[in-house]
């Protein structure tokens, strides 16, 4: 079970600083997902760990030893690339076995290992095919087989599923997770798809512009986002965010249009009065009822089992879960009931989480 620690790791391309300085500890055997929007430096971070990029500063510790100067092959990592990067001129057998060939493993042993790995990724029949003759999902399996065959200490995946169609993506997700359960190898998985992150990860690292916003289990990240950024990025849909003014004496938040959300007196957070952002998830906002926040319905998103209503509240779009079966027509007035104990309060400037009305900040 190999641990990885990154201490003050930074990376610049010329003048362009992609990762300004980052600390992260990956536990042995953990399945860690790096989540963030396109261009935030996820791939760069993964490639730094793999040794495909040279760090500009800081340390990369793999299994307790400094690895900055080690070549990719010495780090014990295997990588699955987004476009698979299969060797186009080699067939499946040769692709999977190439690492062993380079390592000088005798032919007979190599063939046996390739056969074993190919079988475990379901490619037993296709060993003689070239990559161009395989489907997307099959190529994906070859890439995984190629990574597995070396019994690596660390698996690195760079958006390996983004080229697959939705159905196959779900299936491969399960296979990757199963593989991890079987082997227990430390795994870093990059994605910009938060559903993928939630379903796969032991822990998620949410990145933004080369900086870690939050590290935590999927449940922690969902229920206790560290910042407005995480809150809006994670979850389908993301958390609703509303600007408001907190009145410490009255324990109320006044929205931009003058409507007021009253916090429970007993659980009002110990904050000074002033502007803040309050966040609430769609499932903590119910529709209907006589009293509540007045909003205008924009449209309804039908999800089958449930439906989401997009409403306009205090000039901002707010999404709520609609309980009734018959959604009102667009443009209709609608009232929203917020579960105030599930409210999140964020600093208006920094976006940091300031705590719950419920307490546990």
């Amino acid at each position, binding site marked *: 079970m190999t641990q990885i620690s990154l201490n003050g790791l930074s990376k610049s391309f010329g003048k362009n600083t992609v990762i300004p300085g980052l600390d992260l500890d990956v536990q042995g055997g953990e399945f860690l997902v790096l989540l963030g929007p396109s261009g935030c430096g996820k791939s760069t971070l993964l490639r730094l760990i793999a*040794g*495909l*990029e*040279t760090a500009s500063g800081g340390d990369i510790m793999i299994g307790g030893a400094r690895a*900055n*100067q*080690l*070549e*990719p092959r010495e780090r014990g990592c295997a990588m699955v690339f987004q476009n698979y990067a299969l060797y186009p001129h080699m067939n499946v057998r040769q692709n999977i076995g190439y690492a062993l060939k380079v390592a000088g493993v005798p032919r007979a042993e190599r063939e046996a290992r390739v056969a074993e790995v190919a079988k475990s990724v379901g490619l037993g029949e296709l060993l003689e095919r070239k990559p161009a003759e395989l489907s997307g999902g099959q190529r994906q399996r070859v890439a995984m087989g190629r990574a597995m065959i070396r019994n690596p200490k660390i698996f690195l995946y760079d958006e390996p599923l983004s080229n697959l169609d939705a159905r196959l993506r779900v299936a491969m997700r399960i296979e990757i997770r199963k593989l991890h359960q079987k082997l227990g190898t430390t795994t870093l998985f990059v994605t910009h798809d938060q559903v993928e992150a939630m379903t796969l990860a032991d822990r998620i690292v949410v990145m933004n512009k080369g900086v870690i916003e939050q590290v935590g289990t999927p449940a922690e990240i969902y229920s206790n986002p560290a910042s407005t950024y995480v809150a809006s990025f994670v979850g389908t849909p993301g958390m609703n965010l509303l600007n408001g003014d907190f009145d410490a004496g009255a324990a109320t938040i006044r929205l931009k249009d003058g409507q007021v959300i009253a916090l429970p007196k007993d659980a009002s957070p110990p904050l000074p009065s002033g502007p803040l952002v309050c966040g609430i998830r769609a499932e903590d906002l119910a529709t209907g009822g006589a009293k509540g926040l007045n909003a205008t319905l924009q449209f309804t998103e039908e999800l089958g089992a449930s439906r989401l209503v997009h409403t306009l509240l205090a000039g901002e779009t707010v999404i709520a879960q609609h309980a009734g079966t018959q959604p009102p027509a667009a443009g209709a007035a609608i009232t929203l009931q917020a579960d105030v104990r599930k409210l999140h309060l964020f600093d208006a400037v920094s976006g940091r989480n300031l705590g719950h009305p419920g307490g546990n900040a």
Partner: protein
Amino acid sequence: MVERTPLINLLTHAVLLLGLVILMAPLALVVIAASHDFKTVNLSPMPLIPGGHLWENLRAAWVGNNFGQVMFTSLVVAFGVAAGKIILSAMSAFSIVYFRYRLRMVFFWIIFITLMLPLEVRIVPTYAVAANALSPYQGLIDALASLVPAISIKLPEWNLLNTYQGLILPLVATATGTFLYRQFFLTVPEELTEAARMDGAGALRFFWDVLLPLSKTNMAALGVIMFVWAWNQYLWPILVVTDQNHFSTATMQLSKAVPGLAFGEPPVWNTAMAATLIVMVPPLIVVILAQRWFVRGLISTEK
């Protein structure tokens, strides 16, 4: 990539440097030889420290070979060929790609096949055409007249020997550019043509206002390649110019650049190398200034 390969890096630098020395040596030798006086250049081996006679030799070579006139001729030919290719091939590719008529693919193949056979393999008959550019048509008429005597006509002669047309036109008559433009036109989105037609543009306007501006890089690439190619032509000029004392291109002038002082004396290598230098500088300058287009042009015309 993190790679500790000091030995291979050293090897890399050594190989690259050695390659550079090999590839630059002949050019350097030309310059060095052109900078020595007659005695030094004929030492064996020649000293590699350049001498101080470069300008003197260049001037001697320039005057002795009448390079003022000769370089002008070569410039006209090179520009003429480049311009001719750019214009003609854009037009013919437009006709082939943007219209639909039965002979379209026939024409395409007629032009395309010319890519296969360079001028060198058909010099003798091409020379005969250059002596009278209307002879093919006379030939056609004569062939018809043997069937229908009534149409027997005698065309005048049009002699292209010792003319700019004679130097330029046969070099323009290949498909390199047509092919390049066709490939490019095929990548131009259909929506652009539709939009232009909605805006009321006809074929000519579309060609002029949309296609030509879009093909600027292709034109530059084709122009650079063709300039260098035409400048470097050797065989065709020495055939079509029969009066070499009055009319000569730079490269053919080189065949006369190595006279000995007298029989049995060593050749005047220093001025000969100065002449070589003068002749190779224009294409080198063009290629150095337009490197990007040159490389691009080479790669796309050879497809």
